[in-house]
């Protein structure tokens, strides 16, 4: 039944989106980009792709951060087009996508407020996807208490904040703990929301979100080794969804070293390779393993997001597209960095999408 009426509301946007998707850079584009000697070459190469003249008006010399900003702007424009043409429930779904960025922005503002900085400057640093209308209102807050109240009133993130943090916590806890606590709440909520959308959206999104949740759990575990983060605190940051939940999460919560993380990952077939194969690779120090881990997570994420395009009549593609595009921007920045810093040997460490 879903499929029958899907196109009435969303058919157009899905078509547009799939059009966008075909504009994602392919291997041959990357091959060309990696040949560039300077950032000007890089721009010329990019102008032949769907990015078009997005850098045309930039003064020379180009910096990688301008490229990053402009490329993100392209994505944001596309997204805003989709968002403004969307109707319920897709619009709500798209809003959910922006919440992740919003969390980062709010956390940034909290940091600024905590240190009594002028938070207006911070608005420029916020991720444009996570910008919401009332964001400047948050800048009015001069202390954490006020900020907390305005976050509750002004932002869609209110339930996440109200559910797990008190204004007191913002002051006391490390900002990273705040961020991850809120993010956990967000993931769980998004997961619930996707469930209400029914199959196939829920199927696609659940696999993606489960992975995201597991990735966070594993990352938090590994990154909290040798820090002041206690195991109880750590366990509280794990999202209660995902394929590792609950048994794997319990193991992760107790893990003291990378081997125990590996043991926890062994429970899920797909995750087994993340830590295993890297061990048989070159370096056996945990730093090397963990550094490669991030790469593998990115690859797995891309894979899952690409899978979403194999089905029709669902919203997962929108999420998938945003994530793929995000990865593409990361790739572009990476290549640009390599060009700018003359590190040709590392140039191919990006993760091609198609």
């Amino acid at each position: 039944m879903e499929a029958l009426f899907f196109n009435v509301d969303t058919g157009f946007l899905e078509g547009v989106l799939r059009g966008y998707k075909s504009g994602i850079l392919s291997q041959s584009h990357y091959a060309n980009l990696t040949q560039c000697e300077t950032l000007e070459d890089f721009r010329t190469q990019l102008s032949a792709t769907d990015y078009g003249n997005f850098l045309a008006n930039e003064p020379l010399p180009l910096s990688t951060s301008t490229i990053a900003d402009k490329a993100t702007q392209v994505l944001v424009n596309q997204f805003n087009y989709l968002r403004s043409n969307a109707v319920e429930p897709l619009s709500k779904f798209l809003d959910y996508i922006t919440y992740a960025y919003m969390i980062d922005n709010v956390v940034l503002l909290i940091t600024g407020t905590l240190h009594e900085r002028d938070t207006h400057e911070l608005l420029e640093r916020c991720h444009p996807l996570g910008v919401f209308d009332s964001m400047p209102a948050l800048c009015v807050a001069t202390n954490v208490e006020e900020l907390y109240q305005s976050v509750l009133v002004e932002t869609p993130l209110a339930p996440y904040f109200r559910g797990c943090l008190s204004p007191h916590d913002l002051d006391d806890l490390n900002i990273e703990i705040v961020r991850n606590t809120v993010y956990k709440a967000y993931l769980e909520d998004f997961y619930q929301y996707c469930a209400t959308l029914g199959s196939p959206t829920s199927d696609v999104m659940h696999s993606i979100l489960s992975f995201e949740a597991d990735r966070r759990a594993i990352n938090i575990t590994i990154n909290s080794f040798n820090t002041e983060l206690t195991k109880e605190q750590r366990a509280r940051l794990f999202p209660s969804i995902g394929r590792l939940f609950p048994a794997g999460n319990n193991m992760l919560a107790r893990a003291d070293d990378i081997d125990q993380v590996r043991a926890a990952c062994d429970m899920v077939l797909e995750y087994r390779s993340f830590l295993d194969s890297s061990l048989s690779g070159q370096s056996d120090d945990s730093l090397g393993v963990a550094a490669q881990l991030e790469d593998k997570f990115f690859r797995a994420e891309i894979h899952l997001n690409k899978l979403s395009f194999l089905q029709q009549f669902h919203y997962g593609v929108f999420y998938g597209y945003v994530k793929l595009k995000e990865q593409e921007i990361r790739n572009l920045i990476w290549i640009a960095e390599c060009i700018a810093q003359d590190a040709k040997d590392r140039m191919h460490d990006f993760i091609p999408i198609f």
Partner: protein
Amino acid sequence: MASLTQFKDRNLIAVIGDEDSITGLLLAGVGQVNAQQQKNFLIVDGKTQISAIEAAFQEFTERKDIAIVLINQHIAEKIRPTVDRYRQAFPAVLEIPSKEHPYDPSKDSILKRVQKLVGD
């Protein structure tokens, strides 16, 4: 001449640089914010006034707890006369390359002196 009292309390590294350099060096742990909210680093971007850079340079070179002042070369370039004029041993002023501006030994005020001395 440099007596022990002159440098024994100097143990901080100050930085004047662009955002990336500062971020990296702060990650390594050079950052210090004292009770008066005085920082030992200054972020220079396109909007930073040259006078602000000069002021920071003066402040860092006059502070008694700083042993080394790191400054991005392209920023040193902006206040070159001040840097060239600076001849004190303490704190040591060191020009470092930044991400977007690879190191050019011919501009370094110390290296210029080195070259001159080696040359003759």
